[in-house]
């Protein structure tokens, strides 16, 4: 249902600080807008985004309705060892998506 795009360098050097860019499709309905019938459209947003690197949490973001639709989030982390980076988005209406990407540290 939801498609996530993740941009992580394939290989990094140990100790290097690298950027992780993510984009996920989600309408991020604020709950403050009226639909065609004049009724408020109920809120439907991603509330939380977390990134774990080999099980250790390196980034945690709380989102609000003020985040644009199809949230783009980019942040940095330090390359420690090869393994997996897990990204998790959770939100209203039991929205939950988890994606993992491998990372090779030379």
């Amino acid at each position, binding site marked *: 249902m939801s498609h996530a795009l993740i941009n992580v360098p394939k290989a990094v050097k140990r100790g290097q*600080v*690298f950027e992780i860019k993510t984009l996920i499709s989600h309408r*991020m309905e*604020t709950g*403050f*807008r*009226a*639909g*065609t019938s*004049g009724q408020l*459209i109920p809120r439907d947003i991603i509330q939380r985004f977390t990134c774990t*690197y080999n099980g*250790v949490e*390196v*980034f*945690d*973001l*709380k*989102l*609000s*309705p*003020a*985040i*644009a*639709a199809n*949230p*783009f*989030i*980019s*942040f*940095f*982390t*330090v390359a*420690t060892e090869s393994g997996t980076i897990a990204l998790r988005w959770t939100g209203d209406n039991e929205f939950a998506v988890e994606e993992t990407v491998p990372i090779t540290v030379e």
Partner: protein
Amino acid sequence: MDEAMTDLSHPPGTTRRVFLVRSTGATAALVLGAGALPSSPAQATPETLEAAIKGVIGNATPRQGKLTLDLPPLAENGNSVSMTVSVDSPMTQADHVKAIHVFNEKNPQPHVLSATLGPRAGRAQLSARIKLNDSQKVVAIAETSTGEFWTASADVIVTLAACVEDSPS
């Protein structure tokens, strides 16, 4: 245009001319006019912005300097405005940025985002795209592990406001 003007509840003594001078051109006036329609939701105000900041940092006084808030001065579309927050920090175990918070002045809610990071982040920087309901001030605050607070703010002029109408999809 005139109809939208008369709907505005500007303070007494504000003539139409003064109002026009204050509003930054016809487009901004139009955005303000749309904001004054009875169906629009309540807006956050500078007071709620301050209350929201107090709720996060308590009585600490944030200082200017190490935090950079990158936002375009003029945003064509308030539905998606690119924002980058970065803090000048060594990001070591002893001295790192613990949290970054972003607030706004005039969206329905003052909170934009709150990020938790640590020495594993390597660099205290994040980017996201945000919604802005009106031309307004955006404030970012960073908390360091040494108990310091850094702040920066940016004023953004928004020509097409977010949140006002349902998309045609």
